[in-house]
């Protein structure tokens, strides 16, 4: 499954990294504390969070994540978008809340294990 498949399934809004959506998604992680995400996410994960500041791009790039989904309709800061374009990191927006979206991703076959 690719980032693009997830975008289509949930009608996510694409805010950055539209050229990187064919990346394969291997597992996912949901969390809002960056060091926890650094410790537990794995390469290829899709990351579900409510954080919108530029450091989410730094974390996702360091951990080679497949993309970031902001929940509850939260929009990324403008600096976050600039950084995400520079790094080629997809940033997607969902109107669903984190629990809801994570559950749906899980149903789709994306497990917590990378």
């Amino acid at each position: 499954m690719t980032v693009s498949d997830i975008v289509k399934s949930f009608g996510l809004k694409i805010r950055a990294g539209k050229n990187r959506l064919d990346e394969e998604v291997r597992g996912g992680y949901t969390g809002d504390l960056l060091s926890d995400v650094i410790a537990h996410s794995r390469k290829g994960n899709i990351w579900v969070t409510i954080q919108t500041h530029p450091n989410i791009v730094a974390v996702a790039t360091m951990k080679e994540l497949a993309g970031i989904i902001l929940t509850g309709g939260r929009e990324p800061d403008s600096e976050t978008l600039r950084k995400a374009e520079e790094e080629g990191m997809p940033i997607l927006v969902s109107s669903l809340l984190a629990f809801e979206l994570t559950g749906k991703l899980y149903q789709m076959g994306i497990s917590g294990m990378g």
Partner: protein
Amino acid sequence: MSGAENNIHLHEMFHIAGGNFTNAGSISSQVKKILKEAGFSSRVIRRTSIATFEAEMNVICYASRGNLSLFITPDFLKIVVEDEGIGIPDVDLAMQEGYSTASERIHELGFGAGMGLSNIKNNTDGMILTSKFGQGTHLEFLISLEGEDKSVPLLNAGG
């Protein structure tokens, strides 16, 4: 140590302002850029970036001011972070996963999981943390370059 000191091909120092969350992460991205341009492997870049990010964030979250220095030698990368601030009363306790004194405001910004120091430990090949309560904290860590391609230009420059 003098033999190793002679082999330092790059030494850069960055200033970190405590409480400045607007520029948070900028020093670790500069360090990352230096290592990328120097041609280090993605593993070395990833481990150094993670540890540097966590060290930078701790100075921003808890200290008044600090300096982060990057040393590149043929055998290892070394990062030294010194800060002035409240310091850490119990270093062993601070090292424990989940232990955090982060305020509500820091939590809202996404910090305070109590995972930072253990992330540093898990991504480096040696780490020393010392602190004088009420004065400041000294952290240093090494990333081994064993197995790295020694044709990295920075390692040959000026040798």
